[in-house]
Structure formats: C-alpha cells, structure tokens
C-alpha cells in the first residue's frame, strides 16, 4: 500500500505560490515523512528551487475563477483521484503548514474518504463559526484523505458533476458565495453521494489564521502573527494561513 501527499500549486500574476509550496514541502518532509507529488504547470515548475525527491504532475490549470479581484487557480482539486499515484492520499492546500505529525495517522484508517468540517480561528474571534451562508454545511477541502476505492471514486465523480453544474447547485443550496469553491463542491458531493444523511469526517478543527493576520515570523516549529495590536504565536500546531503575504515572510 503506497501512501503520499498530493499538493496543487499554480502561480498567478499576483502570487508566487511556489514559494509557499517550498515551505510546505519542507514541513511535510520533516513532520509527516511522506512521499510528495506536486500537481503544477510548467511555468510554475521553472520557478521552483530544487526540493529533493518530489514527484511532479503537469497539467494546465483551469482558469476563470477569481478571489478579491485576483486570479484564483483552485478548480482542479476534483482531479485528485486520477492524479494521485498513491493507494492512500493526503491532499493538502499548500498554505496548510504541518508543524506536527498529526495528519500522518489518518492515512492508516479503514475509511475511504475523510474531510474536516470545522476550522479553529487562532485569533479567538470565531470567524469561521458563522459561515453557514448556505443551506448546506460547508466542509474544508483544505485537508482530506482518500483511498483508491470504489466509494472514493464515486465521491470524486460526484464532485466533477457538481463542478460541471455548479451554478445550478449554488442556487439549489442558496450559497451566498457565487465563486467556485471546492469547500462547497465537496460538501454538496458528499451529501449527494451519501444519501443526504451523513458522511465520515476528520474529528479535528483545522487551526486557521484569517486573511487579516500578518505573519511576523515563521520557522520550522511554528509561527508568530499580528492581528491589530495583538501578537501571538503557536508551535507544534498545524496552521492554515489565509493571508497570501506569507509568500514574503
């Protein structure tokens, strides 16, 4: 049984995501100790520094999505099943920084597909508790685990279907955010594929720093952030950093 991490990384005109990727890869190697495959395009690949043994899969990212006026190349996550070379795969956003080995154990379960439904706001403002801006619970497609199995294949087929008819599902579920979001596409597909009842989840809340937090310092054990006049830090705890200025730290 092969196990590994699948990462998606595409630079945009506004953000050199490959610099975030390099930090993420270093932490995966240190803490998760798993094989890594990066899905990228050739332009992004040419900007990457050598990162040791990493597998690459080249695709042309689907364009057309945007966030805060900038290009947002996030649409290809539905291809994880086909792109992963592993029997069991951990898919992570590259801005999810694994300062612990907590995620590693989830590759050793009997589950076909696991995803988290909750996030923990590290600034203490509970920013993510009021995100029920739809008729469906959102999941966080930031981190998920799947096996190459018939059930997982069904889920990904359903994600593709939801993606193809996303504008319809946005209306159906009255989702306020009109952009394509993997979080909603996955949530809808999981509900549809699991008989509109329940599905298996990771029993953890993803520690998350909202976009208005500035990263002051970061090293291999943790990071320090500033929000307003408050400075705080965490060590040995995974962090999902939403402020893309992380590139410049």
């Amino acid at each position: 049984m092969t196990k590994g991490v699948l990462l998606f990384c595409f630079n945009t005109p506004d953000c050199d995501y490959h610099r975030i990727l390099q930090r993420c890869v270093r932490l995966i190697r240190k803490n998760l100790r798993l094989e890594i495959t990066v899905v990228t395009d050739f332009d992004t690949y040419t900007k990457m520094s050598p990162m040791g043994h990493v597998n690459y899969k080249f695709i042309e990212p689907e364009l057309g999505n945007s966030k805060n006026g900038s290009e947002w190349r996030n649409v290809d996550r539905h291809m994880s099943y086909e792109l992963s070379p592993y029997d069991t795969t951990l898919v992570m956003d590259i801005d999810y920084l694994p300062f612990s080995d907590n995620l590693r154990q989830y590759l050793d379960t009997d589950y076909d597909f696991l995803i988290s439904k909750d996030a923990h706001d590290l600034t203490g403002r509970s920013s993510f508790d009021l995100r029920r801006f739809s008729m469906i619970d959102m999941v966080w497609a930031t981190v998920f685990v799947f096996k190459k199995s018939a059930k997982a294949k069904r889920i990904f087929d359903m994600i593709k279907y939801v993606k193809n008819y996303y504008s319809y599902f946005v209306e159906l579920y009255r989702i306020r955010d009109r952009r394509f979001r993997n979080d909603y596409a996955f949530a809808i597909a999981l509900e549809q594929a699991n008989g509109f009842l329940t599905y298996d989840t990771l029993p953890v809340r993803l520690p998350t720093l909202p976009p208005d937090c500035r990263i002051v310092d970061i090293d291999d054990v943790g990071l320090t952030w500033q929000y307003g006049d408050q400075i705080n830090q965490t060590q040995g705890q995974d962090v999902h950093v939403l402020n893309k200025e992380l590139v410049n730290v």
Partner: protein
Amino acid sequence: MDISELKRQSDLSYDIAIAKRNALEKAHSRLVLVYNEHIFRADAQTISLVKTLHETNTAPFYVLDTNENPVEISDPAEFIKTLIARNQEVLGAYHQICKTFQKRGD
C-alpha cells in the same frame, strides 16, 4: 494603578487567554489517535469506557469510533495502554504550556 497599566494588564490577559485557547485546541487535535484502523479520542470518556468494559466483559467487546462506527476491541489492555499514553503525553505538554502562561501573568 493608572489606566495605562490597567490596559497593559488587560492586553496581557487577552493574549494569554488566546494562547491558552489555542494550546487547548492543539491538545484536542493531538488527543485523536488511530487504533485498529479507526479513529478515537484518547480522552477521559474513552479511557473510562474501555477500562469499564475491560473490567466487566471478556474480550472482544465493541466501542464506537469518532464517526459512530463500531470497532471490535480484541486486546483491551493494549488499547487502554495506548489511550493513556497519548492522553498523558498531551496533557503533560498542555500542563507545561500553562505554566508559561502563569509566568507571563505574574
């Protein structure tokens, strides 16, 4: 105590409260463990349940994982040992962090 000192103390208390909340969340994440291909929390409830079942039933017995799926426990002694080891590793680390908060608040 003048108002600026009160504000400084208030800011410090806030910082400590946030750091403590994050440390507790970190502990909760770490309490989760995979055993026998299923996911459990090594918390007081799980430890008490498994210990009670171990004392009153002969193995194997069955418990629910975090997704409410039944899991056969055939070696309860080993499971309890694993749960307690993780529980005390996590709470020991949390205890150490809380000590640093006390120092900051002095």
